[in-house]
């Protein structure tokens, strides 16, 4: 039994016109503890829907997703999601944002502050503890969100295109940081992205997804032995493999036009 199991999961939406739209079509996936999985695909391929089902924000129309042997229930502190638009609370200071998840637990104030400062140091923002999110750049805000997620010591991090709103250089820097932090903290990560390079840099395995209906087309293992040099030969080789996985899809599609 794998740590995370997605078995035959489908998800249909009813669009405004009343027609049915299949976001996920009989998707199967297994993830081991401590693995870093990227769900990679264009918009509409159901990658965010799959993430939301695993995180407990949405329910599958059919099939079952389970974590650690139990069917996915309500969202809780063991599985924390990081969003593209950060989801920070702008009226709270950075430190109070990081403490958010600790408030429901029975932890004294001083200990809460200590934990918050520890994770702010980890993401290099201890100097900004008393700032408000609006005073920080996008990259810094996402670091606060990561610190907030790590502060509750979750087993799994779900990341929904967390770096999509950042500029290219900031994105690469954060990719390296998150990769190092998560391997250090031994978290299981499900990471949604539409950026091929990002997936190759981060993932242990890449689930390549295609739209209409949303399916996992293939799973590509990234065997880079921990070396994540964006210019090395192995990196480019895997990048090529991902490209060809998507290019096949295009060839399929052209048949319809003949």
């Amino acid at each position, binding site marked *: 039994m794998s740590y995370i199991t997605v078995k035959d999961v489908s998800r249909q939406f009813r669009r405004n016109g009343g027609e049915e739209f299949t976001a996920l079509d009989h998707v199967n996936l297994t993830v081991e503890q401590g693995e870093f999985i990227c769900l990679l695909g264009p918009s509409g391929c159901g990658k965010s829907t799959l993430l939301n089902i695993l*995180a*407990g*924000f949405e329910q599958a129309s059919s099939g079952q997703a389970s974590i650690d042997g139990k069917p996915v229930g*309500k*969202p*809780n*502190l063991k*599985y*924390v*999601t990081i*969003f593209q*638009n*950060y*989801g920070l*609370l*702008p*009226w709270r200071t950075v430190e109070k944002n990081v403490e*958010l*998840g600790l408030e*429901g637990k029975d932890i004294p104030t001083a200990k809460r502050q200590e934990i918050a400062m520890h994770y702010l140091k980890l993401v290099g923002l201890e100097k900004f503890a008393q700032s*408000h*999110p*609006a005073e920080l750049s996008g990259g810094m805000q996402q670091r606060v969100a990561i610190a907030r997620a790590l502060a*509750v010591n979750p087993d799994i991090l779900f990341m929904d295109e967390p770096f999509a709103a950042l500029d290219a250089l900031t994105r690469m820097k954060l990719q390296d940081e998150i990769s190092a932090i998560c391997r250090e903290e031994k978290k299981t990560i499900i990471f949604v992205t539409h950026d091929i390079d990002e997936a190759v840099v981060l993932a242990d395995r890449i689930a390549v997804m295609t739209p209409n209906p949303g399916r996992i087309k293939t799973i590509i293992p990234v065997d880079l032995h921990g070396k994540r040099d964006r210019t090395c030969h192995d990196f480019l080789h895997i990048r090529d493999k991902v490209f060809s996985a998507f290019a096949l899809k295009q060839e399929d599609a052209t048949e319809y036009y003949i």
Partner: protein
Amino acid sequence: MEKIKHIGGSLLVLAILWQSLALAGGWNEALFPSPWGTLKGLGELLSEGVLATDIGASLGRFFLGYVSAVVLAMALGLVLGWYRSLWNYINPLAQVLRPVSPVAWLPFIVLFFGIGEMPALVIIFIAAFFPVLLATVSAVQEMEPVYLKVARNFGIGQPEILGKIVFPAVFPRIATGLHLALGTAWVFLVAGEMAGAQSGLGFLIIDARNNLRADWLMAAILTIGVLGLLLDGGVRLLEGRIYRLWGLKKRSGVS
């Protein structure tokens, strides 16, 4: 500096137009005062302490009526916005009551509360209540969904979520409603104080009229305008600060 120039310029234009109107009309000073006559009247009101007393009385009533309306409307709006099915029942009622001028209720207000202090308070309350209620409800209904997800993820349940997440998350939009309500309520202050209040700027207006003191009347009108401007400026400042802190762009608009 620019601003002072603008204000000074517009005051000058006003004084010239006003003086020419007074000269061209040739009315008795008791019917239409000149700018100078009004200034003298204002001086009189100030030196006798009448104006200060009336301003104090009006502001006291205004804040009592406004603050109680705002607190109630925000609390109610938060709950009604959150429980959408409940709002579907209340919404038609609110839409019917909202366009009715608070002054229209006056006979019933007098019937229920008598004359004197209460009518002014109640009218200010009604004037401020609906803009804040509607702003709060729509702000809650259109809240950024990511806040909800964060709350669910971090184990913040109901009803805690309303105070801890929803209210602060939508507060900038409520603040815009607060700003709007302040202006509306101030407009109705005078009407409210005309129903038997024995002090306040509305009373001063009635009193000046009854005594054929058009200079006092005009001075009272100017005072109401300037105080309204100051209140508006204060709230605008606060609103801007809230928008900055929340990292939002202030809606631009002429107001």
